[in-house]
């Protein structure tokens, strides 16, 4: 078992051996399987369909079996000295637990369901099978321990899928009150995903020749797949919304001179050369095509207003906390309070706006109330991130400035704040992403009620007026109720608001709204990133 190493450790690796190539191929197969599993989980490929001329389930099962066999061969080959490797005496307890968990699941399920032994039998089965897997991983030398149980798991799973024991139509009724069931559409992708991770891990270990280098390779593959899956999930989400939303977005799309609506720019009235009714119209009874323009404009002004309110207050509070206040009980209290405010559910902010702001601003839902409510929601994040950014400005800058006789406030203004700006902008980006998608506070403070959401476009710039009485400026548009994209989507889904007679597919209309919301939020995000890049460049040498 814990025998001497089969080969001496070499400082320089030989050229790629066949075993290395096989292990690398196995890692590649794991990556493909991982992608297939993710794709089938999101129903981008169907299990009953065919892929490369083979039924998808059979293909998944076959690949899993092949991967498992390869892993087994690599381990056994290393054990009998056909493959150069430097394994440790044991794979270790963590790898053992890692192998025991899936095997315990398999053992438990088979004992309780397939063999019909009930819950008690299931527990016994889980413990026995998991224990055997643990022992088989921990007790033998590392090369066998870290490949044997996992390879066997892959082979078993693959065979179960490819032989149709668990086919595309398989359903496991859980027998709960809620009629829950585990279907093949769920089980097969998830099982493939996890067993593939195990397979990739084991083959990466084999690729590294086991030992310390093998463990390094194994961890590397796992971490890399993790990072990749984050990108994959975002990509799938965006792609999904785009695919579903584009048909609705382009309903009634026309291009050509004079097709678009009349627009007045700087006093000149021209007709735009494109017409995209969905983003150029509001909701009205006589429209050929209904659109979400008022909601887009509402969201835009909402975010602008919230940022204008929260950034000066938040940055000011952060300056006070980092530069002026002595670190003590008071700053701790403020810190706890900001963190608490950031974790407060948005509906609570909405209720506050409803109860406190609305009676004070014209007694009706208004854009202004929405701006202030969302500004308060944004505030804690701006404080937290600005504070972190200012704390990370080196004290050397403050010392250098003080040694020149420059006062504290001037130092803050001309050295500390510019150096902290990228961090502040990051905070605002994150916050805007959150508030632009908020529905509940808007529902309570800004939209809803008696008017049809999305019927009027709010004209904030155009409704500034000068008045003869204080405060001398007025902006009725700020006190009007208006819609915003998340709310528009909510109203569409719950009440079917804004569906015109020409909309044959309400679903497309909803997805199009979601797509526009996504685009608006991502545009704010892009603006933030460009701003941050600009400030960072100014701080760094080029």
């Amino acid at each position: 078992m814990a025998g001497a190493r089969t080969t001496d450790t070499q400082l320089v690796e030989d050229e790629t051996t066949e075993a290395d190539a096989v292990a690398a191929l196995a890692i590649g197969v794991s990556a493909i399987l991982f992608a297939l599993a993710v794709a089938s989980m999101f129903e981008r490929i169907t299990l009953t369909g065919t892929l490369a001329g083979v039924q998808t389930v059979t293909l998944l099962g076959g690949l899993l079996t092949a991967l498992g066999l390869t892993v087994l061969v690599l381990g056994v080959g290393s054990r009998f000295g056909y493959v150069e490797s430097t394994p440790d005496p044991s794979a270790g307890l963590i790898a053992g637990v890692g192998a025991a968990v899936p095997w315990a699941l398999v053992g438990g399920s088979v004992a309780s369901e397939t063999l019909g032994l009930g819950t008690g039998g299931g527990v016994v089965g889980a413990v026995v099978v998991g224990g055997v897997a643990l022992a088989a991983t921990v007790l033998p030398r590392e090369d066998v321990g870290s490949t044997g149980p996992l390879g066997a798991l892959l082979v078993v799973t693959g065979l179960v899928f490819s032989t149709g024991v668990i086919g595309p139509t398989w359903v496991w009724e859980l027998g709960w009150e809620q009629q829950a069931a585990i279907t093949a559409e769920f089980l097969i992708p998830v099982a493939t995903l996890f067993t593939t991770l195990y397979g990739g891990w084991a083959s990466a270990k084999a690729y590294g020749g086991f030992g310390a280098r093998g463990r390094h390779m194994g961890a590397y593959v796992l971490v890399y797949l993790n990072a990749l899956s984050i990108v994959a999930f975002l990509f799938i989400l965006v792609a999904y919304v785009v695919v579903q939303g584009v048909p609705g977005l382009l309903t009634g799309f026309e291009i050509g001179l004079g097709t678009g609506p009349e627009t007045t720019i700087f006093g000149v009235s021209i007709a735009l050369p494109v017409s995209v009714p969905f983003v150029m119209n509001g909701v009205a009874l006589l429209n050929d095509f209904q659109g979400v323009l008022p909601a887009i404009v509402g969201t835009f002004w909402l975010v602008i207003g919230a940022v204008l309110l929260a950034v000066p207050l938040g940055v000011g509070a952060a300056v006070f906390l980092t530069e002026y206040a002595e670190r003590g009980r008071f700053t701790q209290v403020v810190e706890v309070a900001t963190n608490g405010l950031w974790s407060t559910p948005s509906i609570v902010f909405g209720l506050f706006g409803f109860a406190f702001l609305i009676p004070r601003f014209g007694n009706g839902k208004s854009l202004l109330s929405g701006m202030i409510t969302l500004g308060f929601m944004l505030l804690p994040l701006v404080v937290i991130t600005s504070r972190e950014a200012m704390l990370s400005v080196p004290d050397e800058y403050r010392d250098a400035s003080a040694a020149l006789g420059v006062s504290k406030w001037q130092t803050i203004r001309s050295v500390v704040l510019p150096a902290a700006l990228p961090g502040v902008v990051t905070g605002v980006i994150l916050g805007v992403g959150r508030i632009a998608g908020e529905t509940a506070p808007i529902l309570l403070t800004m939209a809803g009620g008696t008017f049809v959401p999305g019927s009027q476009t709010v004209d904030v710039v155009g409704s500034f007026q000068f008045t003869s009485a204080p405060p001398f400026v007025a902006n009725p548009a700020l006190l009007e109720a208006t819609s915003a994209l998340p709310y528009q989507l909510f109203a569409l889904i719950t009440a079917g608001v804004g569906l015109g007679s020409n909309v044959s597919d309400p679903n497309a209309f909803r997805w199009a709204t979601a797509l526009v919301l996504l685009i608006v939020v991502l545009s704010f995000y892009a603006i933030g990133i460009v701003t941050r890049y600009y400030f960072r460049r100014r701080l760094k040498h080029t």
Partner: protein
Amino acid sequence: MSENQNPQTNQRTVTTTAEQPRTTTAGETDERTHDAWTAYDFDGDAKMTVDDLDVYYGDDHALKGVSMEIPERSVTALIGPSGCGKSTYLRCLNRMNDRIPSARIDGSVRFDGQEIYQDDVNLVELRKRVGMVFQSPNPFPKSIRENIAYGPQKHGDLDTGLLARLLNRSDAAERDELVERCLRDAALWDEVCDRLDDNALGLSGGQQQRLCIARCLSVDPEIILMDEPASALDPIATAKIEDLIADLAEEYTVVIVTHNMQQAARISDQTAVFLTGGELVEYGDTDRVFEDPHSDRVEDYITGKFG
């Protein structure tokens, strides 16, 4: 040498000199200092006079009863092992220690005869006249030009803001003159004159440190305090800084903290040796201190037996 010996503490006799010794705090330590060792006679005026300066960080007594006079237009080196209080001493001279909340300072520091530790001292003016260069180069993340112009702009001596430009009152020409003069004085002009608008963080370490010296010169100081200005630099950059210090001493009073005894011997006119515990043990003409130290401990330190 003046004989202003303190008569109240003659508890020990020292065999190396005939004069009466003095312990700083009776019974606390057997380390001995001697007033005669720190009395330094020089020609000309004292720019800065420090009398019986004590500094505490919380309960830590960092500097014990230091008295010394710093002559005008010369280089004064402060040497000593780590933690001996020489940087603390330096930071007392422009009241940078005020920025450390736990620091407590007793004693008197007079700058051109004026006490700087009293209530209504104008710290802005003091720090303009007593400039400081730090151990690691710390230019602002701004352009070279902005780094130099920063101090005068903040003091309102240069106005290049939008309003000034609109009113055609911009001091851009004066600013560029000042930038060139300071950079020339800091021996950096030839290396950076064609990239004044580049970010200062793109300069090498030695160039950054000379930029910091130029920045310090921009507010027209009388004294320049340097806290190990060359310790983070390579030998060539160090040599440039040392040449620069020698040039600066013709016009300014330079006080420099250094770990490097060869450097102190090369560049300074007088040397003060601090030893562990925050005491000034010996102060005098550099050649005298290095060749014929009064104190055995200083001799041990200089020859490398201790410290």
